[in-house]
Protein backbone atom coordinates (compact mmCIF):
# COMPACT_ATOMS: atom_id res chain seq x y z
CA UNK A 1 0.00 0.00 0.00
CA UNK A 2 1.46 3.30 -1.09
CA UNK A 3 0.64 6.31 0.99
CA UNK A 4 1.78 9.88 0.63
CA UNK A 5 1.00 12.52 3.18
CA UNK A 6 1.24 16.24 2.92
CA UNK A 7 3.81 16.16 0.10
CA UNK A 8 5.40 19.36 -1.09
CA UNK A 9 7.81 19.72 -3.96
CA UNK A 10 10.08 22.70 -4.42
CA UNK A 11 12.06 23.23 -7.62
CA UNK A 12 14.40 26.17 -7.60
CA UNK A 13 12.25 29.16 -6.83
CA UNK A 14 9.03 27.43 -7.54
CA UNK A 15 6.84 25.48 -5.19
CA UNK A 16 5.16 23.03 -7.57
CA UNK A 17 2.61 21.62 -5.20
CA UNK A 18 2.01 21.15 -1.53
CA UNK A 19 -0.34 19.40 0.80
CA UNK A 20 -0.70 16.51 -1.58
CA UNK A 21 -1.94 13.25 -0.09
CA UNK A 22 -2.77 9.98 -1.74
CA UNK A 23 -3.39 6.40 -0.81
CA UNK A 24 -3.23 3.54 -3.27
CA UNK A 25 -4.12 -0.03 -2.54
CA UNK A 26 -4.01 -3.26 -4.57
CA UNK A 27 -5.96 -3.02 -7.79
CA UNK A 28 -5.77 0.76 -8.00
CA UNK A 29 -4.69 2.55 -11.09
CA UNK A 30 -3.92 6.24 -10.73
CA UNK A 31 -3.42 8.61 -13.57
CA UNK A 32 -1.60 11.76 -12.57
CA UNK A 33 -2.95 14.45 -14.84
CA UNK A 34 -2.27 18.09 -15.42
CA UNK A 35 -0.82 20.42 -18.00
CA UNK A 36 2.84 20.43 -19.02
CA UNK A 37 5.19 21.47 -16.27
CA UNK A 38 2.72 21.07 -13.44
CA UNK A 39 4.95 18.58 -11.66
CA UNK A 40 3.85 15.10 -12.68
CA UNK A 41 7.34 13.78 -13.27
CA UNK A 42 8.52 15.41 -10.09
CA UNK A 43 5.75 13.72 -8.14
CA UNK A 44 6.54 10.32 -9.60
CA UNK A 45 10.17 10.66 -8.65
CA UNK A 46 9.16 11.55 -5.12
CA UNK A 47 6.97 8.48 -4.92
CA UNK A 48 9.81 6.22 -5.99
CA UNK A 49 12.16 7.65 -3.38
CA UNK A 50 14.61 8.95 -5.96
CA UNK A 51 14.28 12.45 -4.56
CA UNK A 52 13.41 13.82 -1.14
CA UNK A 53 10.20 15.73 -0.73
CA UNK A 54 10.50 19.25 0.55
CA UNK A 55 7.90 18.37 3.13
CA UNK A 56 5.74 15.35 3.84
CA UNK A 57 6.42 11.68 3.52
CA UNK A 58 5.92 8.69 1.28
CA UNK A 59 5.27 5.36 2.94
CA UNK A 60 4.99 1.82 1.63
CA UNK A 61 2.87 -0.41 3.84
CA UNK A 62 3.21 2.19 6.54
CA UNK A 63 7.00 2.40 6.51
CA UNK A 64 8.68 5.52 5.11
CA UNK A 65 10.27 4.48 1.84
CA UNK A 66 13.66 5.88 2.73
CA UNK A 67 13.72 3.84 5.89
CA UNK A 68 13.31 0.40 4.34
CA UNK A 69 14.60 1.26 0.94
CA UNK A 70 15.44 -2.24 -0.19
CA UNK A 71 12.10 -3.80 0.56
CA UNK A 72 10.32 -0.96 -1.18
CA UNK A 73 12.49 -1.13 -4.24
CA UNK A 74 11.95 -4.85 -4.49
CA UNK A 75 8.26 -4.08 -4.83
CA UNK A 76 8.68 -1.24 -7.30
CA UNK A 77 9.09 -0.91 -11.04
CA UNK A 78 9.76 2.60 -12.28
CA UNK A 79 10.07 3.57 -15.92
CA UNK A 80 10.94 7.21 -16.38
CA UNK A 81 11.27 9.55 -19.32
CA UNK A 82 14.67 8.06 -20.12
CA UNK A 83 14.58 4.58 -21.52
CA UNK A 84 17.66 3.28 -19.66
CA UNK A 85 19.04 1.83 -22.89
CA UNK A 86 22.70 1.60 -23.64
CA UNK A 87 23.27 2.43 -27.28
CA UNK A 88 25.96 -0.18 -27.81
CA UNK A 89 24.00 -3.12 -26.45
CA UNK A 90 21.20 -4.94 -28.22
CA UNK A 91 17.66 -4.82 -26.85
CA UNK A 92 18.14 -8.34 -25.56
CA UNK A 93 21.32 -7.50 -23.70
CA UNK A 94 19.81 -4.32 -22.36
CA UNK A 95 16.75 -6.08 -21.04
CA UNK A 96 18.77 -8.93 -19.59
CA UNK A 97 20.96 -6.48 -17.74
CA UNK A 98 18.07 -4.34 -16.53
CA UNK A 99 16.50 -7.39 -14.93
CA UNK A 100 19.72 -8.68 -13.42
CA UNK A 101 20.60 -5.28 -12.02
CA UNK A 102 17.15 -4.86 -10.54
CA UNK A 103 17.63 -8.12 -8.69
CA UNK A 104 15.29 -10.30 -10.72
CA UNK A 105 17.61 -13.24 -10.73
CA UNK A 106 15.19 -15.77 -12.12
CA UNK A 107 14.81 -13.95 -15.44
CA UNK A 108 16.88 -15.73 -18.04
CA UNK A 109 17.74 -14.98 -21.64
CA UNK A 110 14.85 -17.05 -22.90
CA UNK A 111 12.21 -15.08 -21.03
CA UNK A 112 13.76 -11.78 -22.05
CA UNK A 113 13.66 -12.77 -25.69
CA UNK A 114 10.03 -13.80 -25.34
CA UNK A 115 9.13 -10.50 -23.77
CA UNK A 116 10.82 -8.61 -26.60
CA UNK A 117 9.10 -10.68 -29.25
CA UNK A 118 5.81 -10.14 -27.54
CA UNK A 119 6.31 -6.36 -27.59
CA UNK A 120 7.11 -6.48 -31.29
CA UNK A 121 10.88 -6.39 -31.50
CA UNK A 122 11.41 -9.83 -32.96
CA UNK A 123 13.46 -8.45 -35.85
CA UNK A 124 15.49 -6.13 -33.68
CA UNK A 125 16.67 -8.56 -31.00
CA UNK A 126 20.29 -8.23 -31.95
CA UNK A 127 20.61 -4.73 -33.39
CA UNK A 128 22.48 -2.20 -31.32
CA UNK A 129 19.95 0.01 -29.54
CA UNK A 130 21.51 3.05 -31.20
CA UNK A 131 19.81 2.36 -34.51
CA UNK A 132 16.33 1.71 -33.14
CA UNK A 133 13.52 4.11 -33.88
CA UNK A 134 12.03 6.17 -31.07
CA UNK A 135 9.09 3.86 -30.63
CA UNK A 136 11.29 0.77 -30.65
CA UNK A 137 13.47 2.27 -27.92
CA UNK A 138 10.44 2.92 -25.83
CA UNK A 139 9.31 -0.67 -26.33
CA UNK A 140 12.52 -2.13 -25.02
CA UNK A 141 11.93 -0.30 -21.76
CA UNK A 142 8.34 -1.43 -21.62
CA UNK A 143 9.28 -5.07 -22.17
CA UNK A 144 10.27 -5.08 -18.51
CA UNK A 145 6.59 -4.93 -17.64
CA UNK A 146 6.13 -8.46 -18.90
CA UNK A 147 8.88 -9.65 -16.61
CA UNK A 148 7.81 -7.70 -13.55
CA UNK A 149 4.40 -9.10 -12.77
CA UNK A 150 5.69 -10.04 -9.32
CA UNK A 151 6.40 -6.39 -8.48
CA UNK A 152 3.16 -4.99 -7.14
CA UNK A 153 3.83 -1.30 -7.74
CA UNK A 154 4.41 0.08 -11.22
CA UNK A 155 5.23 3.74 -11.64
CA UNK A 156 5.29 4.79 -15.29
CA UNK A 157 6.10 8.23 -16.63
CA UNK A 158 4.45 8.79 -20.02
CA UNK A 159 4.60 5.15 -21.10
CA UNK A 160 2.61 5.79 -24.28
CA UNK A 161 4.98 8.35 -25.77
CA UNK A 162 6.19 7.45 -29.25
CA UNK A 163 4.19 4.23 -29.37
CA UNK A 164 1.98 3.49 -32.35
CA UNK A 165 -1.72 2.82 -31.97
CA UNK A 166 -1.52 -0.94 -31.63
CA UNK A 167 1.21 -0.76 -29.06
CA UNK A 168 -0.79 1.76 -27.02
CA UNK A 169 -3.74 -0.60 -26.95
CA UNK A 170 -1.67 -3.56 -25.95
CA UNK A 171 0.10 -1.62 -23.23
CA UNK A 172 -3.23 -0.45 -21.84
CA UNK A 173 -4.36 -4.04 -21.64
CA UNK A 174 -1.19 -5.07 -19.86
CA UNK A 175 -1.66 -2.33 -17.29
CA UNK A 176 -5.30 -3.18 -16.76
CA UNK A 177 -4.36 -6.82 -16.29
CA UNK A 178 -1.77 -5.94 -13.70
CA UNK A 179 -4.36 -4.04 -11.69
CA UNK A 180 -6.91 -6.80 -12.08
CA UNK A 181 -4.30 -9.16 -10.63
CA UNK A 182 -3.98 -6.98 -7.55
CA UNK A 183 -1.17 -4.73 -8.64
CA UNK A 184 -1.00 -0.97 -8.35
CA UNK A 185 -0.19 1.34 -11.25
CA UNK A 186 0.66 5.03 -11.16
CA UNK A 187 1.11 6.65 -14.53
CA UNK A 188 1.12 9.96 -16.32
CA UNK A 189 0.01 10.49 -19.86
CA UNK A 190 -1.44 13.18 -22.07
CA UNK A 191 -2.93 10.61 -24.45
CA UNK A 192 -6.16 8.73 -24.12
CA UNK A 193 -5.70 4.99 -23.86
CA UNK A 194 -8.25 2.17 -23.94
CA UNK A 195 -8.05 0.93 -20.35
CA UNK A 196 -10.41 -1.82 -19.29
CA UNK A 197 -11.56 0.32 -16.36
CA UNK A 198 -11.02 4.07 -16.35
CA UNK A 199 -8.26 4.91 -13.91
CA UNK A 200 -8.64 7.28 -10.98
CA UNK A 201 -7.38 10.70 -11.90
CA UNK A 202 -5.29 12.93 -9.68
CA UNK A 203 -5.42 16.40 -11.13
CA UNK A 204 -2.16 17.92 -10.04
CA UNK A 205 -3.31 21.31 -11.26
CA UNK A 206 -5.53 21.45 -8.19
CA UNK A 207 -2.52 21.35 -5.87
CA UNK A 208 -0.40 23.79 -7.81
CA UNK A 209 0.76 26.83 -5.97
Amino acid at each position, binding site marked *: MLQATDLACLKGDRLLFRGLALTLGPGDMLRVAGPNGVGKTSLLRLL*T*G*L*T*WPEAGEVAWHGVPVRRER*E*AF*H*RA*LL*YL*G*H*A*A*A*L*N*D*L*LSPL*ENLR*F*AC*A*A*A*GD*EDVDEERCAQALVRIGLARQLDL*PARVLSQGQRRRVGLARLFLSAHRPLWVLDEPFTALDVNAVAELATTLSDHCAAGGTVVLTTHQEAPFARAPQVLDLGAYAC
Partner: protein
Amino acid sequence: MLSSFLAILRRDLLLSWRGRADLLVTLAFFVVVVCLFPFGVGAEPNQLRAIAPGVLWVAALLASLLALHRLFAQDHADGTLEQLLLSSEPAVLWVLAKITAFWLTTGLPLVLAAPGLALLFDMEQGALPVLTLSLALGTPILALLGAVGAALTLGVRGGGMLLALLVLPLYVPVLIFGAGAVDAQLGGTGATAHLLLLGGGLAGALALAPWACAAALRIAME
Protein backbone atom coordinates in the same frame (compact mmCIF):
# COMPACT_ATOMS: atom_id res chain seq x y z
CA MET B 1 24.14 -10.42 -4.32
CA LEU B 2 27.11 -11.88 -6.05
CA SER B 3 25.07 -12.54 -9.14
CA SER B 4 24.17 -8.90 -9.56
CA PHE B 5 27.80 -7.95 -8.98
CA LEU B 6 28.71 -10.33 -11.77
CA ALA B 7 25.93 -9.14 -14.04
CA ILE B 8 27.20 -5.59 -13.84
CA LEU B 9 30.80 -6.57 -14.21
CA ARG B 10 29.97 -8.67 -17.23
CA ARG B 11 27.94 -5.93 -18.86
CA ASP B 12 30.57 -3.26 -18.36
CA LEU B 13 33.26 -5.51 -19.77
CA LEU B 14 31.01 -6.33 -22.70
CA LEU B 15 30.42 -2.65 -23.26
CA SER B 16 34.12 -1.94 -23.34
CA TRP B 17 34.50 -4.73 -25.77
CA ARG B 18 31.78 -3.31 -28.00
CA GLY B 19 33.34 0.12 -27.86
CA ARG B 20 36.71 -1.51 -28.43
CA ALA B 21 38.12 1.75 -29.66
CA ASP B 22 37.72 3.10 -26.16
CA LEU B 23 39.77 0.39 -24.66
CA LEU B 24 42.60 0.73 -27.10
CA VAL B 25 42.46 4.44 -27.02
CA THR B 26 43.11 4.92 -23.31
CA LEU B 27 46.18 2.93 -23.96
CA ALA B 28 46.96 4.91 -27.08
CA PHE B 29 46.65 8.11 -25.15
CA PHE B 30 49.12 6.84 -22.59
CA VAL B 31 51.55 5.89 -25.32
CA VAL B 32 51.19 9.16 -27.14
CA VAL B 33 51.65 11.31 -24.07
CA VAL B 34 54.76 9.41 -23.14
CA CYS B 35 56.11 9.74 -26.65
CA LEU B 36 55.24 13.42 -26.72
CA PHE B 37 57.63 14.24 -23.95
CA PRO B 38 60.87 13.88 -25.78
CA PHE B 39 59.49 16.38 -28.30
CA GLY B 40 58.74 18.82 -25.56
CA VAL B 41 61.83 18.57 -23.42
CA GLY B 42 64.44 17.58 -26.00
CA ALA B 43 66.04 14.23 -26.65
CA GLU B 44 69.04 14.40 -24.33
CA PRO B 45 69.34 10.73 -23.16
CA ASN B 46 70.51 11.36 -19.60
CA GLN B 47 67.82 13.84 -18.95
CA LEU B 48 65.22 11.54 -20.44
CA ARG B 49 66.41 8.68 -18.30
CA ALA B 50 66.19 10.87 -15.23
CA ILE B 51 62.63 11.93 -15.85
CA ALA B 52 61.38 8.60 -17.19
CA PRO B 53 59.63 7.25 -14.08
CA GLY B 54 57.96 10.57 -13.49
CA VAL B 55 56.79 10.92 -17.07
CA LEU B 56 55.44 7.39 -17.19
CA TRP B 57 53.56 7.83 -13.98
CA VAL B 58 52.19 11.23 -14.87
CA ALA B 59 51.05 9.88 -18.23
CA ALA B 60 49.36 6.90 -16.59
CA LEU B 61 47.65 9.24 -14.21
CA LEU B 62 46.41 11.52 -16.97
CA ALA B 63 45.19 8.58 -19.02
CA SER B 64 43.21 7.24 -16.05
CA LEU B 65 41.89 10.68 -15.38
CA LEU B 66 40.71 11.14 -18.93
CA ALA B 67 38.91 7.86 -18.94
CA LEU B 68 37.10 8.69 -15.70
CA HIS B 69 34.29 10.75 -17.12
CA ARG B 70 33.10 7.67 -18.96
CA LEU B 71 32.65 5.73 -15.77
CA PHE B 72 29.11 6.92 -15.01
CA ALA B 73 28.30 9.53 -17.65
CA GLN B 74 26.66 7.23 -20.15
CA ASP B 75 24.62 5.42 -17.54
CA HIS B 76 23.55 8.73 -16.12
CA ALA B 77 22.48 10.15 -19.45
CA ASP B 78 20.42 7.15 -20.53
CA GLY B 79 18.70 6.55 -17.20
CA THR B 80 20.48 3.32 -16.29
CA LEU B 81 21.88 4.85 -13.14
CA GLU B 82 18.41 5.75 -11.97
CA GLN B 83 17.40 2.14 -12.43
CA LEU B 84 20.44 0.90 -10.58
CA LEU B 85 19.66 3.16 -7.66
CA LEU B 86 16.16 1.74 -7.60
CA SER B 87 17.53 -1.77 -7.47
CA SER B 88 17.07 -3.63 -4.25
CA GLU B 89 20.72 -4.62 -4.19
CA PRO B 90 23.07 -2.52 -2.02
CA ALA B 91 24.64 0.24 -4.07
CA VAL B 92 28.21 -0.41 -2.90
CA LEU B 93 28.06 -3.71 -4.63
CA TRP B 94 27.40 -2.50 -8.11
CA VAL B 95 29.57 0.54 -7.62
CA LEU B 96 32.43 -1.79 -6.86
CA ALA B 97 31.56 -3.88 -9.90
CA LYS B 98 31.66 -0.84 -12.11
CA ILE B 99 34.98 0.32 -10.70
CA THR B 100 36.45 -3.14 -11.14
CA ALA B 101 35.38 -3.30 -14.75
CA PHE B 102 36.71 0.19 -15.26
CA TRP B 103 40.10 -0.70 -13.88
CA LEU B 104 40.27 -3.90 -15.88
CA THR B 105 39.64 -2.03 -19.08
CA THR B 106 41.63 1.13 -18.51
CA GLY B 107 44.13 0.54 -15.72
CA LEU B 108 45.32 -2.93 -16.55
CA PRO B 109 46.36 -2.14 -20.14
CA LEU B 110 48.50 0.69 -18.84
CA VAL B 111 50.19 -1.59 -16.36
CA LEU B 112 50.98 -4.04 -19.10
CA ALA B 113 52.21 -1.45 -21.55
CA ALA B 114 54.39 0.53 -19.18
CA PRO B 115 57.51 -1.69 -19.23
CA GLY B 116 57.63 -1.50 -23.01
CA LEU B 117 57.46 2.26 -22.95
CA ALA B 118 60.06 2.45 -20.21
CA LEU B 119 62.49 0.85 -22.61
CA LEU B 120 61.95 3.76 -24.98
CA PHE B 121 63.41 5.99 -22.31
CA ASP B 122 66.21 3.52 -21.79
CA MET B 123 65.21 2.76 -18.24
CA GLU B 124 67.33 0.24 -16.37
CA GLN B 125 65.88 -3.24 -16.77
CA GLY B 126 66.11 -3.96 -13.06
CA ALA B 127 63.57 -1.27 -12.34
CA LEU B 128 60.94 -2.57 -14.73
CA PRO B 129 59.31 -5.03 -12.30
CA VAL B 130 59.08 -2.29 -9.72
CA LEU B 131 57.52 0.04 -12.26
CA THR B 132 54.94 -2.56 -13.18
CA LEU B 133 54.20 -3.41 -9.60
CA SER B 134 53.87 0.20 -8.57
CA LEU B 135 51.42 0.80 -11.40
CA ALA B 136 49.53 -2.38 -10.58
CA LEU B 137 49.05 -1.16 -7.03
CA GLY B 138 48.62 2.49 -7.88
CA THR B 139 46.18 2.52 -10.79
CA PRO B 140 43.39 0.82 -8.80
CA ILE B 141 43.73 3.59 -6.21
CA LEU B 142 43.40 6.12 -8.99
CA ALA B 143 40.29 4.36 -10.24
CA LEU B 144 38.73 4.21 -6.78
CA LEU B 145 39.43 7.83 -5.87
CA GLY B 146 38.48 8.95 -9.34
CA ALA B 147 35.15 7.17 -9.11
CA VAL B 148 34.23 9.31 -6.13
CA GLY B 149 35.07 12.43 -8.09
CA ALA B 150 33.17 11.18 -11.12
CA ALA B 151 30.11 10.50 -9.00
CA LEU B 152 30.28 13.92 -7.38
CA THR B 153 30.50 15.80 -10.67
CA LEU B 154 27.88 13.77 -12.49
CA GLY B 155 25.68 15.94 -14.65
CA VAL B 156 27.22 19.07 -13.23
CA ARG B 157 28.02 21.79 -15.74
CA GLY B 158 31.69 21.86 -16.54
CA GLY B 159 31.78 18.35 -15.14
CA GLY B 160 34.70 16.86 -17.02
CA MET B 161 37.19 19.44 -16.00
CA LEU B 162 35.78 19.97 -12.55
CA LEU B 163 36.46 16.32 -12.08
CA ALA B 164 40.10 16.87 -12.94
CA LEU B 165 40.34 19.65 -10.41
CA LEU B 166 38.74 17.55 -7.70
CA VAL B 167 40.76 14.42 -8.06
CA LEU B 168 44.18 15.67 -8.99
CA PRO B 169 45.12 16.77 -5.46
CA LEU B 170 44.00 13.36 -4.26
CA TYR B 171 46.13 11.68 -6.90
CA VAL B 172 49.32 13.39 -5.78
CA PRO B 173 50.25 10.96 -3.00
CA VAL B 174 49.77 8.03 -5.35
CA LEU B 175 51.98 9.70 -7.89
CA ILE B 176 54.64 10.47 -5.32
CA PHE B 177 54.84 6.95 -4.01
CA GLY B 178 54.48 5.37 -7.42
CA ALA B 179 57.18 7.37 -9.15
CA GLY B 180 59.14 7.34 -5.89
CA ALA B 181 59.19 3.56 -5.85
CA VAL B 182 60.87 3.44 -9.24
CA ASP B 183 63.27 6.19 -8.35
CA ALA B 184 64.18 4.48 -5.13
CA GLN B 185 64.84 1.24 -6.96
CA LEU B 186 66.99 3.07 -9.48
CA GLY B 187 68.74 4.94 -6.68
CA GLY B 188 69.53 1.66 -4.95
CA THR B 189 67.61 2.28 -1.74
CA GLY B 190 65.01 -0.37 -2.53
CA ALA B 191 61.35 0.18 -3.23
CA THR B 192 59.78 -1.97 -0.52
CA ALA B 193 58.67 0.89 1.69
CA HIS B 194 57.03 2.72 -1.19
CA LEU B 195 55.28 -0.37 -2.43
CA LEU B 196 54.02 -1.21 1.04
CA LEU B 197 52.60 2.27 1.37
CA LEU B 198 50.91 1.93 -1.99
CA GLY B 199 49.47 -1.39 -0.89
CA GLY B 200 48.19 0.18 2.29
CA GLY B 201 46.67 3.01 0.29
CA LEU B 202 44.94 0.52 -1.95
CA ALA B 203 43.47 -1.34 1.01
CA GLY B 204 42.25 1.93 2.49
CA ALA B 205 40.77 3.14 -0.77
CA LEU B 206 39.05 -0.20 -1.32
CA ALA B 207 37.50 0.01 2.10
CA LEU B 208 36.27 3.60 1.88
CA ALA B 209 35.90 4.79 -1.70
CA PRO B 210 32.99 2.57 -2.79
CA TRP B 211 30.90 3.86 0.08
CA ALA B 212 31.71 7.45 -0.64
CA CYS B 213 31.01 6.81 -4.30
CA ALA B 214 27.65 5.18 -3.65
CA ALA B 215 26.67 8.05 -1.39
CA ALA B 216 27.73 10.55 -4.02
CA LEU B 217 25.69 8.78 -6.69
CA ARG B 218 22.60 8.80 -4.56
CA ILE B 219 23.12 12.50 -3.96
CA ALA B 220 23.62 13.11 -7.66
CA MET B 221 20.18 11.69 -8.45
CA GLU B 222 18.35 14.14 -6.20
